């Protein structure tokens, strides 16, 4: 079962897509005013740009949810004094740096090393987070990505795999 937060993002995303398609159609009450003097092709190009931007923004929201889930899990494992290897590794980190740990170099690495079977998924996540950094930090450089295209669908699928495969601890 998918995490409730990413399901809410997907539902919101679908509503925005449907709203944009309606707004850019002649069924919209403001169509004449908004697109006065424009060609059908110009309207299609603008709609495509809006849909693409929406896709990217929704993907970023999924990344934020994934990051929050890993950080919350880190704190829970540190506080709950669980006895598995991952929780022990987190507590060792917490002794030194408290909450000032890096998502990728510390938390992801600990999962990869200490949680059996997570290596491939964490590798995919690290690749996708390069795309997340490009998205979140102004998109001013050309990202070197593991795959040619990340979009909302692929990022959602990856997040779903994370929530379905890794036992991320939630707040009590």
């Amino acid at each position: 079962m998918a995490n409730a937060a990413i399901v809410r993002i997907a539902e919101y995303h679908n509503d925005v897509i449907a709203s944009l398609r309606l707004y850019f159609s002649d069924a919209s009450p403001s169509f004449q005013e908004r697109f006065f003097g424009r060609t059908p092709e110009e309207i299609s190009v603008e709609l495509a740009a809006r849909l693409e931007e929406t896709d990217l923004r929704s993907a970023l929201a999924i990344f934020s949810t994934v990051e929050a889930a890993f950080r919350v899990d880190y704190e829970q494992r540190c506080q709950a004094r669980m006895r598995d290897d991952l929780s022990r590794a987190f507590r060792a980190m917490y002794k030194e740096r408290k909450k000032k740990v890096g998502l990728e170099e510390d938390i992801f690495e600990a999962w990869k090393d200490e949680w059996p079977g997570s290596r491939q998924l964490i590798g995919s996540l690290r690749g996708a987070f390069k795309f997340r950094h490009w998205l979140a930090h102004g998109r001013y450089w050309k990202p070197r990505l593991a795959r040619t295209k990340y979009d909302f669908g692929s990022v959602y699928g990856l997040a779903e795999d994370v929530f379905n495969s890794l036992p991320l601890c939630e707040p009590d």
Partner: protein
Amino acid sequence: MSTRAPRNDFDEFVRRQQVSSTVAEIDWEKERDEWLDYLNLLYKRVEAFLTTYTSSGQIVLEYRNVKLNEENIGSYIARKMVLRIGRQEVSLVPVGTLLIGCKGRVDIVGPAGKARVLLVDSDASGLAALVHVSVGTGGKIPVFAEPASRTIKWAWRIVTRPPERRFVEITQERLFDLIMEVANG
């Protein structure tokens, strides 16, 4: 093989893709030719405004063919007017006739920007005069008033910047302002 009824959405999608009888009745060649005639009228007007400068050689005016492609009409050739003013080049680029709310558009394009000239209903003073929004109250669906049937007289107009978006006649002074705006910023 299943013969169940098609889904409503798909049914509606297929229906919308059919050429409606209204669309089929339109003489698209006539629409295109009318638009090209109006385009020539605009060019003649601009030529007249610039005579002093073109006759002295300070502005060189020439035409280049551009290929336009519009739904139902297909591809056709129209003329683009190019004004060379010293090192600057400003073009009047025809965009097409199948547009939202108007019969034609020419973009005035220069190194510093772009402005639009539209072929609109000569009786309309601005966008607000053409756009009617009906609002339903108390949960009732709005009633749309049918526009009165009349022959529209088309005229080239400059659309002022938002929020006014008024249609103003193309005078020599306004055309010069537009050219300077797109050339110099």
